[in-house]
C-alpha cells in the first residue's frame, strides 16, 4: 500500500471515481478521524512496573502449574456444556425464525435488537432473576445466538441455487420442497457456520466465568487477578488446546454423545420464585415515574442517570480506534500466514501466533493487558485490535492464497503492494465493516473491566441493584450498536457500485 506517500499526481488519482480510489479515501478518512480524536483517548499507563509483571506472566505461561486449580476438568467440561447446549438451543430457536426472517420486519428488528446486546450483558440481566444457574448461562448464549442464527441462516437460504426447486411440479407441498431442494443445498454452509459459532460460544462460555459462573473464565480471572500466573498459564493452555483440537473432539459423529453426556453436567437449576420474577419484569426494570404515570418526573429520573456522554464518547472512540487498529494489524499480519511469503517455518510460527491471538477471548486479553497497564483505553484498544485483526488476517491470507500473481518472479514488497493488495483490499475492508458491529458490541463490554465505556455503568447499575437504570443503559447500548451496524453496512465495499464480473469473497460464513 503506497497510500501515505502519494506523489503530487496521486492526489488526482485519489480524487478519481474508481473503486480503488474510493476505498482508499474511505480508509484515509477513517485513519484521519482516528488520529484527530486520539488525544481525547485516555491511553495512560498507571501501573508502576508493567515489564516485571509481563515477565512474571510469561514465566507463568512457560511453566504452567496444572495441579493448582482444584477441579480443572469440571471447569473445562462445564465450559463445553454451556457452549454446546447454548448453541443447540440457539439453533432450535433461530432456525424457525430464519424461515420467516426475510418476510417479517418485526422478526428482523427483534433479532437486530437481541444481537446488539452482548452475551455477557444478557448474562448480567438473567443473573438477577435466575442467579448463578444453568438457566442464566444457557439463556445468555442461546438468546443472542438464536438472533444471529436467524439472520445468517436466512441469508444462506436466500443465496442457494433455485433451479432444482423450479424443476418441481407446482403442486409440491412446501415441506417436501424445502427438505429436498433447499435444505440439502444449504446444508454445508449452514453446518459450517454453526460450527464456527460453536467456537465463538466456547469463548463466550469462558467469559461467563467473569460474572461468576464456574467455567474456565472464573478460575482464569481469579488466578490472574491474584497473580497466580502459573495456575492462570495452565488454564490458558487448556483453553488453547481445547480450541486447537476442536476438529478432533467436536467431530460431527461425537455430537450426540457429547449432548447426552454433558446434559448431566448442566446445573445447578434454580428455584424460581414466580412472584419475584413478575416483580422484576413488571416493576424493577421500569423507571419509577413511568410506572406511576407521572411523566413530569421523567426528566428528573433522567438526570439521575450517570453522565453518559463521556461513556458514549469513549465507546464510540474505542470502536473507531479498534476498527482502524484491526485493519493495521491485519495488513501487517496476513503475509505471515500466506503461501506467497516466507517459508514453512515462518508460516507455522505465524499461524501459531495468529491462532493464539484469535482464540483468546477479547475480554480476557484485555483483562491480562489491563493488569499490565492499569485501567485506560489502551489495553482495550490493543486487545480488540489484535483479536479482530488476527481474525481478518486469516481470511485475507486465504483469499490471497487463491490468487496467482500475473507477473512471474515478482516477490516481496512488490508482490504485496502491486499484485496481491489491490486484489484483496476490497475483501479486507468488507470483512472489517462486518466486524465493526462485533467490535462495537465488545467495546461496551470492556467497561466491565473498569474502562469507562457504557458497559462500566451497566455493570455498576446491576451491582447497586438499580435495574431500571441498567436496562435503560442496555437500551442505549443496543441503539448505538444498531446504528453503527447500519452505518457500517452502508460503508461496506459490497454496497459500493463495482464491476459485477469480479467475484468477491462472500465473508458471511466467518464474520458475524
Amino acid at each position: 500500500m503506497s497510500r501515505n506517500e502519494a506523489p503530487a499526481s496521486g492526489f488526482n488519482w485519489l480524487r478519481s471515481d474508481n473503486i480503488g480510489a474510493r476505498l482508499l479515501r474511505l480508509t484515509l478518512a477513517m485513519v484521519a478521524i482516528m488520529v484527530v480524536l486520539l488525544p481525547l483517548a485516555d491511553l495512560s499507563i498507571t501501573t508502576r512496573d508493567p515489564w516485571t509483571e509481563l515477565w512474571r506472566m510469561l514465566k507463568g505461561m512457560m511453566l504452567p502449574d496444572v495441579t493448582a486449580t482444584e477441579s480443572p476438568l469440571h471447569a473445562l467440561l462445564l465450559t463445553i456444556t454451556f457452549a454446546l447446549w447454548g448453541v443447540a438451543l440457539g439453533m432450535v430457536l433461530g432456525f424457525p425464525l430464519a424461515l420467516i426472517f426475510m418476510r417479517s420486519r418485526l422478526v428482523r428488528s427483534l433479532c437486530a435488537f437481541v444481537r446488539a446486546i452482548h452475551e455477557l450483558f444478557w448474562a448480567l440481566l438473567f443473573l438477577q432473576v435466575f442467579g448463578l444457574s444453568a438457566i442464566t448461562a444457557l439463556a445468555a448464549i442461546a438468546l443472542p445466538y438464536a438472533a444471529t442464527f436467524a439472520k445468517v441462516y436466512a441469508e444462506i437460504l436466500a443465496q442457494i441455487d433455485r433451479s432444482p426447486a423450479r424443476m418441481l411440479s407446482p403442486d409440491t407441498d412446501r415441506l417436501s420442497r424445502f427438505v429436498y431442494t433447499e435444505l440439502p443445498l444449504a446444508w454445508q454452509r449452514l453446518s459450517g457456520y454453526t460450527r464456527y459459532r460453536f467456537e465463538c460460544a466456547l469463548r463466550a462460555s469462558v467469559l461467563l466465568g467473569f460474572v461468576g459462573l464456574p467455567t474456565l473464565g472464573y478460575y482464569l480471572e481469579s488466578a490472574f487477578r491474584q497473580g497466580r500466573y502459573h495456575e492462570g498459564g495452565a488454564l490458558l493452555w487448556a483453553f488453547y488446546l481445547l480450541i486447537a483440537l476442536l476438529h478432533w473432539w467436536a467431530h460431527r459423529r461425537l455430537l450426540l454423545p457429547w449432548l447426552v453426556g454433558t446434559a448431566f453436567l448442566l446445573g445447578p437449576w434454580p428455584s424460581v420464585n414466580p412472584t419475584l420474577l413478575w416483580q422484576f419484569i413488571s416493576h424493577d426494570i421500569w423507571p419509577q415515574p413511568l410506572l406511576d404515570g407521572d411523566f413530569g418526573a421523567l426528566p428528573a429520573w433522567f438526570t439521575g442517570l450517570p453522565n453518559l456522554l463521556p461513556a458514549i464518547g469513549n465507546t464510540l472512540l474505542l470502536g473507531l480506534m479498534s476498527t482502524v487498529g484491526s485493519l493495521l494489524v491485519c495488513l501487517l499480519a496476513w503475509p505471515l500466514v500466506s503461501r506467497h511469503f516466507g517459508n514453512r517455518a515462518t508460516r507455522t510460527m505465524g499461524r501459531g501466533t495468529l491462532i493464539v491471538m484469535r482464540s483468546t477471548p477479547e475480554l480476557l486479553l484485555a483483562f491480562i493487558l489491563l493488569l499490565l497497564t492499569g485501567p485506560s483505553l489502551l489495553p482495550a484498544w490493543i486487545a480488540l485490535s489484535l483479536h479482530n485483526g488476527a481474525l481478518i488476517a486469516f481470511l485475507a491470507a486465504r483469499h490471497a492464497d487463491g490468487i496467482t500473481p500475473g507477473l512471474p518472479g515478482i516477490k516481496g514488497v512488490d508482490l504485496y503492494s502491486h499484485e496481491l493488495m489491490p486484489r484483496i483490499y476490497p475483501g479486507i475492508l468488507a470483512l472489517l465493516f462486518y466486524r465493526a458491529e462485533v467490535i462495537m458490541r465488545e467495546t461496551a463490554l470492556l467497561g466491565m473491566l473498569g474502562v469507562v465505556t457504557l458497559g462500566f455503568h451497566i455493570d455498576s447499575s446491576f451491582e447497586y441493584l438499580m435495574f431500571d437504570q441498567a436496562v435503560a443503559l442496555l437500551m442505549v447500548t443496543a441503539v448505538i450498536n444498531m446504528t453503527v451496524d447500519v452505518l457500517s453496512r452502508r460503508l461496506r465495499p459490497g454496497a459500493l457500485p463495482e464491476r459485477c464480473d469480479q467475484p468477491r469473497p462472500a465473508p458471511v460464513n466467518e464474520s458475524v
Partner: protein
Amino acid sequence: MKHWGCCDNLMPYATVAEPYAGPMLAGFDHARLGHDQHVVFPELTLHISQGERIALLGRSGVGKSTLLDALRVQLGDQSAWCPQANALVPTLSAYHNIYMGRLAHFSRWQNLINLLRPNRACWQEISALAETLGLDGLLHRQVDQLSGGQQQRVAIARALYQNRPVFLGDEPVSSVDPRQGMRLLDLIKARHPTCVVALHQRELALEHFDRIIGLNDGRITIDAPSRDLTTDDLDVLYVPE
C-alpha cells in the same frame, strides 16, 4: 418467471388448421413470450399435436428455453420436464434426485421418511429405471460425485420417473457422446407419445424427430417435417449475423 399471453391467445381447438394426425395439445397464436420484462418472441404462432416428436433448433440464447418454459406452463401436469444444466441437488444421492420427479405425487410425510430411509417400492421402481439408463449401482452415490454424463442421465431418469405423456427437454443429451445420445432419445421416445426437445446436434434432430422447428431472431424460421430437410437447410440457423 413471467409469461405474457401464452394462454389467453389460444385458438379454439376446432378452428386450427391441422396438418398432423393427433388432437392438439398446446399452442400459441400471435403470442408475446418472454421473461423478466424482456420480450423474446414478439409474435409467436405454433401448434403442437399429440404424437408429434419435435426438435427445437437454434443458436444458444435464441429462446428455446423460453419456448419450452411456456409450453410447460400450458401443459401443466401432462408434461415431464428435463431442464437445462440438469438442475440436480448435488448433495443428495442419485436415488433421491430421481425420486424428486414424483415429489408432488406422494404425501409430505412419505417424502420426509424417504429422505432418511428409501421407500422399498420406490427404490425398486427407480433401480429398474436406472438400469435401463446404465446407472445401476450408482443410486447411492451423491450426485456431485458423478460425471457430467452420469448426471445428465440422472436428470433424464428424474423426468422419466414423472411418468407423463409429454416429454419436454432442454438439451437433455448435450453432455453425452452421440451414440449414447441416440440411445437416450430412443428411450425417451419409447416412453412418451409426444416430445419436444431442444437440441444442438443437427444430425440427431433429423434422424430421431418427425418435425423440426428452427428459431432465429425472435421468430420461427423453419417448421417442417424432418424428411423434407437436410443438414444444409439447418445451417442457416447457425449463421452469425
